[in-house]
């Protein structure tokens, strides 16, 4: 497994000349989970997309993003396409909109797997089916033959996780994967994220503004504000002794919600692994 090292990442808007992400640097160790927290507009999603080089053409990015020693920013678009999905897997916020609304979800799954592995249809269905069962999707074949609007947000989120399980990437980048879900689906999806890492041993970048979820999943935390990383460190340390005022504000603001979430998740003990 490989580490991901982001150094001096800057993202600016060409049209307005505004800096959206300023000089951020961080390291994701192999097999670890780094969470990025911060309010909306702080540059979390932009950072995620920058790692996959998926920001729109109007945004300019600089700095280096090294995956296992290879600088992704230096690769051609073609080489980058081979890395996306296969070694870097993105999971987006809203499962309802992540799949082509006019095709059954199986189409996207098969197209992706065929692209990266060139398997036969039967093999793709078999592997996908197994992965989907492991994320507790009953009747995988029926799910694959459903249109996105016939499935729930939580199911679609778990389909994305199942696809990541089959693709076995080095790193899974999850951009607020639980924000659009209700509490129960949130719980199920977070559990699947936890076991995803255990099963394929990938590293994970997990963006969220929900500190309860972050506490459950992350080893390291980056706190972003206005495009800057204002604080970073091991999860427990950030929660026990936050140094930056903004971090303290975030933690206190989420305290009430946090308590409730921990209650739902079955107490604090899960964090202490």
């Amino acid at each position, binding site marked *: 497994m490989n580490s991901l090292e982001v150094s001096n990442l800057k993202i600016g808007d060409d049209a307005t000349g505004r800096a959206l992400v300023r000089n951020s640097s961080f390291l994701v160790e192999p097999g670890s989970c780094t969470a990025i927290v911060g309010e909306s507009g702080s540059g979390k999603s932009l950072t995620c*997309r920058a790692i*996959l080089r*998926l920001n729109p053409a109007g945004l300019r990015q600089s700095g280096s993003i090294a995956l296992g020693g290879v600088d992704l920013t230096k690769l051609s678009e073609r080489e980058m*396409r*081979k*890395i*996306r*999905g*296969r070694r*870097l*897997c*993105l999971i*987006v*916020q*809203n499962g309802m*909109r*992540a*799949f*082509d*609304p*006019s*095709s059954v979800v199986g189409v*996207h799954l098969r*197209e*992706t797997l065929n*692209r*990266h592995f060139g398997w036969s249809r039967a093999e793709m269905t078999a592997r996908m089916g197994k992965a989907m069962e492991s994320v507790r999707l009953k009747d995988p074949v029926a799910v694959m033959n459903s249109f996105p609007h016939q499935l729930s947000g939580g199911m679609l989120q778990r389909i*994305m996780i199942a*696809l990541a399980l089959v693709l076995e990437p080095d790193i899974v980048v999850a951009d607020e994967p639980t924000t659009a879900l209700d509490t129960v689906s949130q719980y199920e999806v977070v559990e699947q994220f936890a076991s995803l890492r255990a099963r394929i041993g990938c590293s994970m970048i997990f963006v969220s503004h929900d500190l309860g979820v972050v506490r459950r999943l992350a080893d390291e935390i980056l706190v972003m504000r206005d495009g800057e990383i204002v604080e970073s460190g091991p999860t427990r340390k950030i929660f026990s002794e936050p140094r930056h005022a903004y971090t303290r504000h975030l933690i206190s603001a989420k305290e009430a919600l946090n308590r409730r979430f921990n209650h739902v998740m079955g107490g604090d003990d899960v964090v202490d692994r």
Partner: protein
Amino acid sequence: MGAYIVRRALIAIPLLAMISFAAFVFQHLSPLDPAEVVLHSQGVPKITDELIAETRAELGMDRPFLIRYLDWLVSCLQLDFGKSYVANQPVWSLLGPALLNTLKLTLVSVAAILALSVALGVACALKAGRWLDKSIRGLSFVLTSAPSYWLAALMVWYFSVKLDLLPTSGMDSARSYVLPVAVIAIGYAGIYFRVIRSSMLGNLNEDYVLYGRACGLPESTLVRRVLKNSLQVAISIFGMAIPTILGSTVVVENLFAWPGLGTLSVRSVLSRDFPVIQAYVLVLAAAFVLFNAVSDIASAAVNPKLRNDL
């Protein structure tokens, strides 16, 4: 879906009844007495009151209004629209072939519009904001602001007179279609390609494109998905295009002497041939309603969400 079709059809029926009634009343609004028109067109030298009364009886105009309407409606349904005052032959023998010719022109035009606006819409959406997009939009803006007959005249002058490539009028061969279709297509494609463009742009910004890219799918696959989703939105608009164009080929047909409804209707208006005008209004309005219903049903078939709209 079946229930939707029934509901949609039920909406069309009162509309058709209203149209037929309006078309029937229409002939009574004219300041001219149809009997006089008939006598004039037959070249009767001296029109006496008796002659008029006789002709009125012959035309069945002395019976009660509602009876005449129902009689008329029944015969219309059997394609019997009476006799043309001027040509002295059944209206349908004039209208039928003309309708067919206009339908041919319309369908070929819609095909051209579809091809042109999809091609331009896709190209502009993929190059949004670049010079290709800007110049196509600018050109289409000017072209849609130009009268079609003016464009047509320029094209005739260039392609038929200067280059002597294409016929200026009539409907003799496939080449006769080129100029009329081009004129119609330029006008409408200029409107519809924008719909495709903005719908493509909306779809390109959707998460499924981002996720597809993040999964390593090539742009061609993603463009295909976006196109498919954009075309669904466009289908209802193109469905609307068929009836609209069917009813608005008037100028182009007259310009290119196309033997269709547009030419026939203007000729009938100028000679005040009421039965023909009446049948023309009735047939086109009915076609308009039917095509609209069909296009609604087609859109609902593609997009299940629309089925709840009625």
